């Protein structure tokens, strides 16, 4: 693909904004979800590894 071919590809026949917004939003959503779920699993495991987790008391009782 040469330079003019690439700019033509990006322009999407004048609909580039709508097409690329759709693809970028989808990509961002998927990457965000993967990062968030991996972080959640890591946090859950960390908390499960803490030896004191069985006796943890919620502090809204004070």
């Amino acid at each position, binding site marked *: 693909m040469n330079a003019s071919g690439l700019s033509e*590809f990006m322009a*999407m*026949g*004048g*609909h580039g904004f*709508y*097409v690329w*917004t*759709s*693809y970028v*939003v*989808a990509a961002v*959503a*998927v990457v965000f*979800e*993967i990062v968030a*779920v*991996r972080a*959640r*699993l*890591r*946090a*859950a*495991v960390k*908390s*499960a*590894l803490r030896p004191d*987790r*069985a006796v943890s008391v919620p502090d809204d009782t004070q």
Partner: protein
Amino acid sequence: MSSIAWFRLASPASFFPLARRLVPWFSAGAAVLAVTGLWLGLLVAPTDAQQGDAYRIIFIHVPAAWMSMFIYIVMAFWCAVSLTFNTRLAAMLAQALAPTGAMFTVLALVTGAMWGKPAWGTYWAWDARMTSELILLFLYFGYMALSHAIDDPRRADRASALLALVGAINVPIIYFSVKWWNTLHQGASVSLTSAPTMAATMLTGMLIMAFAAWFYAIAIALLRVQAIIVEREKNFRWSGELLRWIR
């Protein structure tokens, strides 16, 4: 004996290693399918005679819309299993699916707006298809909010499962809305009973993207259910080996 082994999988702690093993396979499948589908959709499929290149949103929009409905049905199925057999794992699987279903619903709505502007001249209309899809998003949010709002997890499972099951009536309404009402939205893109109306590369690209979305949803739900299992099975004695495996 085999039936005993099968039922052992219904225990969250036994299901955990299986989920762990399946994630890389579904992730790799999703990646290969997505690259193939994007190549077909963006580089191979021809420009549409009527819509120009704006139609290429279809490769995101239709898979996202299908998944938004399909994930809801699977989620409602696990809610029904959880209510009927009172199994923890079924409720956990439903909870693991909900955020991904909501994500695909948002994508269907956003990409629909992005397609609506060049195709119809408006980002949004209160027609039956779009309104019922928006209600689907609120059902996902309601299910997630309710399952987090009740402190006792088993009670939260039952209440949210009931909400999900009642809300399932919305899925056939979304699907058939374009037939039942006179909508701005076009009819079904793919029919099993009639010949395809679009170019073969367009249809193939769209179906491959749909399979990519399917594999992705399975992979991410199996990853999220691991987190839910570790969060909720507080009484299970996680062996050091299992926890080291996660790193």
